[in-house]
């Protein structure tokens, strides 16, 4: 049987960085096909090629066994291909129904047929368990519900091929269950489904076939039968999971680098926290519980209140980023492109920015000294190539290195890291891990906020699990395990380890 949708030997590069190399995939009707790979392995790019949002540099896209010369989103829609993107395609100011029908409204006399739209949108909403009034503006829905709207939007188009890019990352357990049941039913109706997820247990139960990408190359294309989760991880990582993390010796000292009492910022309410010098303190929990606000509040980037605070021996919170920098705090944001880097500026300029921010405003710059510093940092972190290139020419991993490197000349005492390995290739991950531990061993404090639980387990002296704006548990090294973190994050308490 010809696959409904297939890619044959496709390649794609961005800014000269190959992202996909000679990758093939075939989506068969009535099959849930898993696409696995590390962040940055090229999954999203492959989806964009399959759905016509991008065009391959080499290779072909086939629909029903026939090669399509210039695939566009319009072609893809006509061929019955629907995509649930990770970055939502919704418009906040429009209602649920208007979003679901967007681009494919039912018409009567040239006008949008609102009653037909309502009926069809309602049918799609019922499939995914959305019961909010259809007139609700999408901007008023929480993230998980928006994701369900996005899925309903794909179903509204009655797709033959359904591509879902990490659909469950922002869903609750109930919503996930609804979705998996739904996908099972769609599969039995003969729809081809491509399913991308980091949750291996979901993949094991839902999918029949798997394609694994690693650094842009297809490392496996096989049925899931006879494979276990550990086997999948080996395929993705290319080595045993244990090798990823460096060996290290606890280096925490009893002295506090940061100490706050009754600290509130953003979602965080009345938190007590001590960060010791020489430790890597992990911050875990489900997405969006206030972890980020904790870091940003300490860093002075958002308003914060506290009963008492001591940072690096100085009483009081910084109250502003320049002051935080002066106190020895440095922050590396999660979203490199939006918060961490100036993509249109050179690598050198990016590396020098914290220096520009703290030098006297009208002191003359020395371009040569800047180049020297940047070259030194690049050598230290293994960033290769011309440093006068724009930062957007770098791969995700190297961008992250630049975002880290720019703080190094300022010798920060406390390093606040927000998900530093998100979308970073395995090698860079390992380098970042080594750097963190070396940093802690040198007597500095590292705060590692991470959505990657194994990272917290394998790298941290202690992990603070945040739930609902509070530190739900402070897990000491001896009590650290993925289960302990997850159960604390979900609220299934094991209070014996709570600090």
């Amino acid at each position, binding site marked *: 049987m010809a696959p409904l949708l297939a890619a044959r030997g496709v390649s794609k590069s961005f800014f000269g960085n190959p992202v996909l190399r000679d990758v093939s995939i075939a989506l068969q009707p009535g099959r849930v096909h898993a696409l696995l790979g590390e962040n940055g392995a090229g999954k999203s790019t492959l989806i964009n090629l399959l759905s016509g949002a991008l065009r391959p540099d080499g290779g072909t896209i086939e629909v029903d066994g026939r090669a399509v010369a210039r695939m566009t989103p319009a072609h893809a829609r006509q061929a019955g291909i629907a995509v649930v993107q990770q*970055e939502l395609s919704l418009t906040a100011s429009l209602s649920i129904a208007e979003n679901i029908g967007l681009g494919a409204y039912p018409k009567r006399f040239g006008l949008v047929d609102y009653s037909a739209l309502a009926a069809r949108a309602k049918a799609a909403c019922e499939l995914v368990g959305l019961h909010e009034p259809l007139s609700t503006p999408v901007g008023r829905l929480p993230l998980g519900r928006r994701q369900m709207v996005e899925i309903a939007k794909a179903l509204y188009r009655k797709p033959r091929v359904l591509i879902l890019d990490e659909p469950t990352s922002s869903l609750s357990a109930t919503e996930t269950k609804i979705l998996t049941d739904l996908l099972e039913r769609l599969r039995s109706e003969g729809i081809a489904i491509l399913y991308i997820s980091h949750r291996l247990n979901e993949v094991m139960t839902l999918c029949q076939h798997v394609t694994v990408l690693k650094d842009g190359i297809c490392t496996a294309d096989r049925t899931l039968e006879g494979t276990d989760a550990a086997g999948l991880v080996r395929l993705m990582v290319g080595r045993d999971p244990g090798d990823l993390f460096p060996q290290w010796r606890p280096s925490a000292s009893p002295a506090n680098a940061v100490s706050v009492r009754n600290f509130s910022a953003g979602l965080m309410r009345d938190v007590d926290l001590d960060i010791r010098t020489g430790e890597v303190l992990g911050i875990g929990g489900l997405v969006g519980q206030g972890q980020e606000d904790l870091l940003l509040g300490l860093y002075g980037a958002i308003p914060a209140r506290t009963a008492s605070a001591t940072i690096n021996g100085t009483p009081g919170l910084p109250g502003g980023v320049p002051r935080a920098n002066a106190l020895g705090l440095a922050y590396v944001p999660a979203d490199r492109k939006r918060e961490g880097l100036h993509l249109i500026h050179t690598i050198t300029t990016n590396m020098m920015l914290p220096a520009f921010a703290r030098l006297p405003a009208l002191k003359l710059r020395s371009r040569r000294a800047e180049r020297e510093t940047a070259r030194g940092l690049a050598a230290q972190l293994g960033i290769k190539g011309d440093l006068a290139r724009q930062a957007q020419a770098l791969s995700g991993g190297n961008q992250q290195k630049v975002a880290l490197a720019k703080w190094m000349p300022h010798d920060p005492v406390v390093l606040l890291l927000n998900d530093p390995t998100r979308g970073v290739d395995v090698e860079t991950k390992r380098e970042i891990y080594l750097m963190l531990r070396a940093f802690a061993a040198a007597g500095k404090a590292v705060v590692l906020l991470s959505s990657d639980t194994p990272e917290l387990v394998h790298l941290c002296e202690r992990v603070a699990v945040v739930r609902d704006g509070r530190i739900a548990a402070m897990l000491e090294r001896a009590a650290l395990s993925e289960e302990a973190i997850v159960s604390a994050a979900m609220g299934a308490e094991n209070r014996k380890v709570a600090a």
Partner: protein
Amino acid sequence: MSTVSSARPAVALYWPVQARRNIGVRSLFVVVLAFLIAYGFLFPGLFSASGFAKFTQSWFPLALVAMAQAILMLTGGISLAIGATVSLGAVIAATTMAGPLGVTGGAAAVALTGLGIGAATGFIVVRLRLPAIVVTLAGSFIIGGAALLILPRPGGAIPEWLSDLLAGDTPTAFVLLIVIVLLWKLYLATPLGLSLYAAGENPVGAYRSGVPVDAARVAAYAISGLLSTGAGLFVAAQTGSGDPVIGAAFTLNSIAAAVLGGIGFLGGQGTMRGALAGSLLLSLMISVMFFLGFTPVAQYVAQGLIIIGAVAIPQFRKVQQ
């Protein structure tokens, strides 16, 4: 699919959606109402037929340019050529309507010019990817120059009956405004009209969903041009003649009205009813200041302060929270 769409359950959608859109502008409506009441006290003649007619006539052109600017801002664009386009509409009306083309032909010429200018601007901004602010700034010189060519100094004429009809003692302007608003509602109920919001707020997502983003944006520019020259026609009818620079003040006032009405600069934020309320508020403020004995100059000063205040205060509250 056929089973779903043939069964028509009584799911009301259109009106609830419309009602939802009022939520963001309720407080604005209250402010406008307060100003209306104050104005009614200062000028009781408002409640006579001719007083109401005069009042709506002073509001009408501002309402049109506010809509013209709002539709662009909804798509993430902006125009600094609105004033010049109004002037061009006025001089075309004043030179054609009393001439061989007659009122119908003149009105058609005004409308076609507006659509053409708008579409051309839209094409340059959207398809050639030049920044809207610079294109429309340069465009204001071209359009203003064209107005000067057609009518180098104030002159021309509008047939008297048309002036009487539009700017006399009958509330024709108000009726026209209602018709225009209804036409706008109709446009917003078409797939192309509704995609304005998506094209302005999330163009990438909209494109992936199959929305003709470029077409929606070019259409917005064309409609904006039509509304602007239409405002020019009305202004010419009000004064009975054409003036090649009469529209100058409308550029700033259109942006001010739209922003007062809650339209954002980033695209997809705000509603047309808000922009209309904003234009009414601005028009009322100008009238109230006039009746309080402000000189036209002091009005400028007050207007500048009010606009900043109206934009800054909500922002300031947000920051405080």
